[in-house]
């Protein structure tokens, strides 16, 4: 996309206009979504809340880190649109996350599943707490 801007450093008027148009054109997306004014319009506020929560828990597959909610990447936009469609379709949160994970990998979910070694992750701190409490109560002198 950088090639578009070779013209940007010249100074004549018509080139200036072209430059402005090119700069704007950079942000043009081919979109198949209907051009409604409120994007992501839902049937009720519960669905809307589900949507915004879900997109904050789905990882952007292209970014170093961060959810699709916080990402501008095209794939994030596609994923947001997909989540939107699926919610309107009636899928549950779990089904939606499953749908995304099947395509983009298990690490798309910022909520690690409760399975296998992830038990260490979810219960580790509590085991740690129990251990420290045990040490403390046995010693009782600080």
């Amino acid at each position: 996309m950088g090639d578009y801007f070779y013209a940007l450093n010249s100074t004549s008027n018509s080139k200036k206009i072209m430059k402005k148009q090119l700069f704007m054109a950079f942000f043009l997306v081919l979109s198949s979504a209907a051009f409604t004014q409120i994007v992501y319009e839902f049937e009720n506020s519960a669905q809307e809340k589900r949507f915004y929560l879900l997109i904050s828990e789905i990882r952007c597959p292209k970014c170093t880190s961060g959810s699709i909610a916080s990402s501008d990447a095209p794939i994030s936009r596609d994923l947001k649109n997909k989540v939107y469609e699926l919610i309107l379709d009636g899928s549950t949160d779990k089904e939606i996350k499953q749908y995304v994970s099947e395509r983009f990998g298990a690490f798309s979910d910022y909520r690690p599943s409760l399975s296998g070694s992830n038990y260490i992750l979810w219960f580790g701190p509590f085991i740690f707490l129990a251990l420290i409490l045990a040490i403390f109560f046995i010693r009782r002198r600080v």
Partner: protein
Amino acid sequence: MIGEISHLLSLSAVLLLSLVLIFNLFFSFNQSHSNQLILSMRLFNQACWLVFISFGIYIYLAISDDFSIAYIANHSNSQLPIFYKVTSIWSAHEGSMFLWIVFLIAWSFLFINALDKNHPLKKPTLLMLSLIILGFLLFLLITSNPFERILPFGAIEGADINPVLQDPALAIHPPMLYLGYVGFVISFSFITAYLFHGDFKLDWEQDIKNWSLVAWIFLTIGIALGSWWAYYELGWGGYWFWDPVENVALMPWLAATAFMHSLFASSKSDVLKTWTMFLGILIFALSLFGAFIVRSGIIDSVHSFANDPERGLYLLSFSGSITLLALSVFAYRLPSLKSSKLVVSGSKESFLSMNNILMITSIFSIFLGVTYPLIIESINGDKVSIGPPYYNTIFAPLILIAAVFIMISVDALWQRSMSLRSLFITMAIPTFLSFVSIYLIWAFASVFSLLAYIGIFSGLLIIFSYINRIINNFFNKKYINKGSAVAHLGLGLLFFAVSMNSIFSYEKNLNLAPGQSISVNESVQEFYFKDIRVFSASNHDVISAEVSLLHDGKEISLNPQKRKYATRGQITSESAIHASFLKDTYLTIGDQLENSSWTFSLKINYFIKWIWFSAALMVLGIFLTIFKKKAS
């Protein structure tokens, strides 16, 4: 040439520090102990000055555009304002490491010279500090040399630094953070020296208390600045992302908070000393761990410096050895550290101990969150993502409960059980008020989130109980600890504001063509997309949208922008924010659609200003504590 002088000065410092260590560890001349100490101090101080001058010269090199130095060529540019030429020094690994070390030396220099020359711990502390500084200087000069040249001719012009980095808040954020991190080398070294020395009748807490408080202030400011910058710059309206690099700054902060509370207790009475010592060591160990994580390249983060395993290995082994040294001395002395008194349940010590235990667990949960993906990936290559869902579930409850213990501990008694009656008297009204507030908020919000409400409750409980206490003590002419009150009010406000923000904030995505207008909801009565303009500014082109909003009856004008910077062709998005008392109206422009309409992301963020204010309150509270007049 000048660069070589600067380089040489740092190398000489290495030599001098090595001499300090060699003299004291291996040779014992037929000199008195005090003479050897005087000599060692002279060598140490000279080494410090050498590095200060070296860094000063380096700043001069950056300001004078010496692009024969690779680092300056890669991160600065002759067109930058002087301020940003200086701040570009710490925009990447080698330079920021240099700054880190300069601060490390500054803290050490001030502290060791302020210690009385006859203080029994002066020599062991000096040795510990020399060892740590030497290790880092060697790391800098061997693996991450900021003085490397571009040969044979140097660069004609520097690369421009990332336009995103040309921001005052972002420029100040690393120095504040580093001052905080390395400030705790004082407690680390002094406590290790104390344990090594073995005279347990020595009073050590007073000597490091104010130093640690100051370091804590810097750390708090550093974290808050980073959060604030992320909020207004990154376009998402979030202020905390649980990014690994944020987490490794949070862990020392938590340890420092637990340490400060423990320190106040152990300086007043003969209790919690073991906790305090352990925590004092832990803080700097966590800072070292943080430096390792960020600079070794093993973490995926937008923050991390791109690095190679060689640097990682050095940092890991050096930090590990230092920490192991301190902890070994601690473990060795552990039996002698037992207090003569047993902890009575329901006493102030017991509540503070519970607070320490919970805070350590909360630190562990963050540690686990940061390292677990690394562990799993190295075992079977699987990738796991850990973010807000994990930390909100595990970390948040721990920290909220810890705060409640701190609150109860204020009115608890030393070595005696707090009676249920006195507990009731102090907590009854605040608890009642908190429940009433929760009820009112719930009625108004009609949103239920267990975690958020616990957060609100905890925050309000802290606020109300301190107000209650202040009023009580005022009318009974009892002593009010201003610093503690202000800092804890800040903490309560933080919990409250963060939780309220999570309940009330919402987002709307809109799609409008220039000239169109829409009513979004009852609160955002009108959103009018007036116009979109393209124009040029100093070093970038701008697409600027003019939007006029009618938000809760108030007219607001916002101009979100897209920018393209000339030098690197980088595109950034500048959000437009209108910050009012209760909420922020936060608008970001997105993409253009085929029908020439533009997408907008409108976020209404509640209580954001309260979050920043709470950080300011905490800093103010710590500040007041430093300057507290000693009770006569």
